[in-house]
């Protein structure tokens, strides 16, 4: 009985790990480095961007893995002019140029050198041409702390803005980093060590403990549950397996 239980669990767990868990955790996915201001939840809104009136926002953290940034443009009057994006703060200062020609709804993206560490920065987006364009922004509950300021005036909208890693990653490549990130905005006792222990116990300890509990229960039931066998009665192979 006990061996049958262990066999049943092992077969399902091994097949499950091979066919479900492994493909899931090994799949390559786009990896954000940080998303200071996410997209809206309930509707679309924009912040106007004109030549000579840059759109700036502060309290943005450029994460150490950030090697690209991205935001989305609205261009009702034709393709975008050249855009310049300055990221400055904590000893980091870089200006990226986005060539003209983006269409309505397209993402404006550019590569940046990765910061040496996570640093709070100010981002300023400038237009180098005449046509008025818009930057998609959140004006609902997705509005972040980094609201856009134009000519010193707060628009009370946050431009959809994210930092990304240059290549895609699997979940397994990012376990250590993910655990680090889980310690942020947590009580002091939620340390990396505690989370590593919990992760190991969850993935390896839980399956073992559950199967052990069942096998132990079978053992505790054993003497009581065993049906009396009639040795004079001929039993089929199936019956012998079942009993």
């Amino acid at each position: 009985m006990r061996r049958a239980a262990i066999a049943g669990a092992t077969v399902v767990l091994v097949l499950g790990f091979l066919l479900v868990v492994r493909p899931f955790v090994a799949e390559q996915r786009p990896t954000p480095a940080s998303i200071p201001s996410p997209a809206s939840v309930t509707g679309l809104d924009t912040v106007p961007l004109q030549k000579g009136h840059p759109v700036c926002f502060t309290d943005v953290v450029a994460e150490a893995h950030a090697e690209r940034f991205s935001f989305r443009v609205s261009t009702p009057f034709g393709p975008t002019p050249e855009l310049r994006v300055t990221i400055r703060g904590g000893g980091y200062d870089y200006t990226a140029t986005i060539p003209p020609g983006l269409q309505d709804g397209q993402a404006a993206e550019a590569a940046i050198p990765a910061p040496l560490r996570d640093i709070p920065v100010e981002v300023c987006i400038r237009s180098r041409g005449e046509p008025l364009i818009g930057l998609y922004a959140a004006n609902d509950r997705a509005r972040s702390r980094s609201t856009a300021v134009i000519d010193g005036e707060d628009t009370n909208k946050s431009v959809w803005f994210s930092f990304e890693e240059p290549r895609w990653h699997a979940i397994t490549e990012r376990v250590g980093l993910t655990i680090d990130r889980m310690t942020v905005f947590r009580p002091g006792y939620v340390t990396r060590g505690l989370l590593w222990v919990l992760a190991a116990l969850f993935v390896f300890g839980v399956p073992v403990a559950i199967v052990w509990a069942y096998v132990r229960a079978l053992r505790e039931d054993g003497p009581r549950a065993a049906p009396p066998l009639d040795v004079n009665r001929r039993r089929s192979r199936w019956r012998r397996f079942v009993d």
Partner: protein
Amino acid sequence: MRRLRRIPLPLLAVLGVVLVEGLAWAFAVPALQGADESAHFSYVQKLADAHVMPWRNPDLGYLEPAYPPSVSTEQRVAWTWAGLEPLRGNRAARPLWTHEDERIWARENAKLTPDHRTDGAGSRVVDNPPLYYLTAVVPYEIAGGTFFDRLYALRVYNVALLLVAVALTWLLAGELFGRRRELQTLAAAAVALHPVLLDVATRVTPDVLLLTLASAALYLMTLVVRRGPSWRRVAGLLAVVAAACLTQGRGLGLVAPALFAVGLGWWRARGAPRPGVLGRVPAVVPWAVGALVVLVAFAAYATRFDFGELAGFWSYLWQFYLPPLPGMTDPIGVSWDVENVYLNRFFGTFVQFEVDFPPDLLRAIRVAVFAGLALLAVSAWRHRRALWARRDVVAVLLVAFVLSVLALHAAAFRSLLVNPADPVITGRYLLMLIPLYGIGVAAAVAAFPGRVRALASGGLLGALVLLQLSAFGLVVERFYA
């Protein structure tokens, strides 16, 4: 230590599993991402910091939990400066996950005064009875510290409540299965590995105290009918049901089953009626009268005492589970049926419903549920003698299930009469009956004989572990990948 040794080892192992899973879920999910979690936290904060019971705001009425003035300034600062509100239910967002983000929040948080913890206006959640929130004040006060210290202390408190609920499932299974460790372990493990239970129970919510008290009520009901209605058992049962009602309105669904259990226990303990007028009344009559009273009470509640709506209620109830009969009109409200509640929401939606199992997996769960129901029928037939010997416990658990679900439907229909856009009833609400799910799983597996059962049980436990890991993996992916 000696007492710990008296706890059966299989139960200890299952409780260890719950502890690991519970803490993992509690710490992995960022703050305030559970359903109405910010509103529930606000309620506790009002009790603990302002030392007042929150009531409906006389000037503002009932506020939506997402409306900023409903919560304290301290919480609003966390919403904005820790990025919690943009994250809620927003798949495009990720948590602010650097220690620099923490420093920016701490800078703003340091500007607050003690008054900023007490200025929340409250939301419609203040309509909830206060018991959970009053008990949660204890871990809130012990934790002290920052907003996050206190919030995660409440989540850990809920993990402790979940441990009690799983232990009660074990005890309940023991009453039904005659202390067969194998089936007790299966029942407790099925509950311990239920993915939506872990997701819901590890947020700040009164639902976890409700399901713990409901588990205790179910266990006490079986004791009352199995061992007789001693005043201690009856008082204990009534106290637990009262506590459930003081925790969440859905606890009212336990009142009728508890009365049924007390009545049945009393009737069985009393033996054959003495000669006289009452002795000549067939036994079925008082039960039929009781059932009629309960049904009329449900109907009156569901229809808001407008019995003209009764046909609509029965039509809604019928079409929730079955195809419409000829002549039936469309039920009130949005299209929302048994599959949404008992399958999709009970097994497969997480956090703010933005994470769910893929359709293929839900289809597989659906097949497993139907197979389980068929096995349950086979098992009932196979163990009919044992079931007959425990018919009182079976009857009580069946009545508890039916009446509790009927109460949920009555409350849902009552609400639909006012707001047809919100179906109200959801899989989360069934969690108060989670011990019955565990018992159902164990009973279904008992359909198999000997080694086949062991093989099937091992396979089932492996599958439940995978389901749990899948749910956790999807939630981690949603926030951190």
